[in-house]
């Protein structure tokens, strides 16, 4: 009888310290595992078609699992500021092969495949390939045309193709009227801040994916700071006309009566003037750091 009662007592004594130990141990193990996986990622099966065959009737479910892998992969890399996105395309390729109607995958892919490092993979060609598959499989989803135009506009600066994409998308009866407007504007004016702001705004408001939203927000903030700086430059020219020297700080403009308050960038940092008297972001501002990242992108693209 004693032996029978021994069990539950032992179990109770063991349960709390046991699981506490397990928890602590797990934290240590996680550290070790992170170290291991940092060195390279692994995607053993890259063939979307093979996976689809193996998934039998569960392909859409597998697509969902792979989609969560995509999100996690990207999020992981972002958090660690790791610029190596080499698995992003294979993951997206597999996901969209398993479920060609998983629209969010196409949209996510088009943004983060085309965007340069460290925000994305910097492969607009693959992004286009992905979007074209998406359009083929989901001809009614006009936003994919928007995304296609987006890639041509922002990353490849091919305004003719961008306008063509917008135009094609505008033919869909469900498309927003601005698609047609945009087609015209882009083919006329090419790169234009107003257009850029508009496009990023569209993405921001139409997507529910948090990472896409965040990325769009950052771009919008950068565009705003660009606009602000341009306005400040105009004011500086005015100041120069009056005092025949460039302003050294915003306070100069205020004392000259050209500014009412101290304008701040969307991150809350006041703008400063560089040595040439040109307005720019405060180097302390987080926006400035992000801008440096995106600057790299442009120079990379230029070098290709």
């Amino acid at each position, binding site marked *: 009888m004693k032996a029978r009662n021994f069990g539950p007592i032992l179990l109770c004594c063991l349960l709390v310290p046991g699981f506490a130990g397990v928890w602590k141990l797990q934290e240590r193990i996680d550290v070790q595992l992170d170290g291991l996986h940092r060195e*390279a990622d692994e995607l053993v099966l890259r063939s979307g078609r093979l996976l689809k065959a193996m998934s039998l009737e569960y392909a859409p479910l597998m697509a969902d699992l792979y989609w969560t892998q995509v999100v996690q992969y990207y999020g992981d890399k972002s958090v660690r500021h790791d610029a190596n996105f080499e698995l992003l395309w294979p993951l997206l390729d597999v996901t969209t092969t398993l479920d060609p109607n998983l629209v969010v995958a196409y949209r996510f892919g088009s943004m983060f495949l085309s965007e340069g490092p460290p925000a994305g993979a910097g492969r607009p060609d693959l992004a286009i390939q992905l979007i074209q598959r998406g359009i083929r499989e989901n001809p009614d989803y006009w936003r994919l045309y928007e995304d296609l135009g987006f890639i041509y506009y922002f990353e490849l600066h091919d305004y003719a193709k961008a306008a063509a994409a917008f135009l094609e998308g505008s033919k869909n009866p469900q498309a927003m009227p601005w698609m047609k407007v945009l087609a015209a504007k882009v083919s006329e004016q090419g790169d234009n801040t107003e257009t850029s702001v508009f496009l990023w705004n569209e993405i921001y408001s139409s997507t529910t994916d948090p990472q896409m939203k965040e990325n769009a927000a950052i771009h919008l903030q950068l565009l705003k700071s660009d606009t602000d700086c341009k306005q400040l430059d105009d004011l500086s020219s005015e100041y120069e006309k009056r005092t025949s020297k460039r302003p050294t700080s915003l306070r100069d403009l205020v004392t000259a009566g050209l500014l009412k308050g101290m304008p701040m960038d969307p991150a809350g940092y006041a703008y400063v003037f560089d040595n040439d008297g040109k307005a720019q972001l405060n180097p302390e501002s987080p926006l400035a750091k992000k801008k440096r990242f995106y600057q790299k992108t442009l120079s990379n693209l230029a070098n290709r």
Partner: protein
Amino acid sequence: MKRVGVVALNTFREAVRDRVLYNLVFFALLLMAAAVVVGQVSIGIEQIVIVNLGLSAISMIGLLMAVFIGVGLVSKEMDKRTLYALLAKPVRRWEFLLGKFGGLLLTLAINTAAMSAGLYAALFYVKHSLERADGLALVAIYFILLKLALVVALALLFSCYTTPLLAILFTAGLYVAGLFVKEMRGVHGDKMAPALQTFLRWLSYLLPNFENFDVMASAAHGRHIPAALILQNTVYAVLYGAIVLVAAVTIFSRRDLK
């Protein structure tokens, strides 16, 4: 204590006579085919493919054995009533349980060892030499064994009080859940209630983290596996396994045999 060994050896004998070990034939064929094919197809990645394939097969076959034999360890004896005569003898219930556990573990260990030998044979055939880095596969195999031990413990626990079918579902379910704990932990939801987030976090630590034992990628690419991890995983498996086994003993010791 000796009785544990007696029960264990008998459990092993049962597995052998049930011709469970014939799976090794299947494994050998698989690996031989792969070795031959890979040798023709490409140079440079033979090691990766063989190790990946071998480790995957060892893990998968081991898991199948652990789950399907594991859930029957107790329930089969109760259904067939072979247990009745045995428990009337001077053997304690915990001795019986540990013996069953040990017997299946022994079977798995021998099975795994045989498959490992096959793996290295295939590796040698393809590369015509073996280097130190190939020893990393042994660490991966050891981790697989730890994982299997934990799965057997869980299967044994469920075997003590539910039907084999439910036991299989629970064990397999826990295993799959244990592979995705990282997702559970990394969930950052702006849309998710903090209570749910905390709950998921707790769950992710309390569930058996089978991900810990997956070092296939490192082994295949010859990347060093830190000794600290080896120690931690061992302690993890022992600690978690002990909790599960004590629970199983507790349940089984109070079970009426109708």
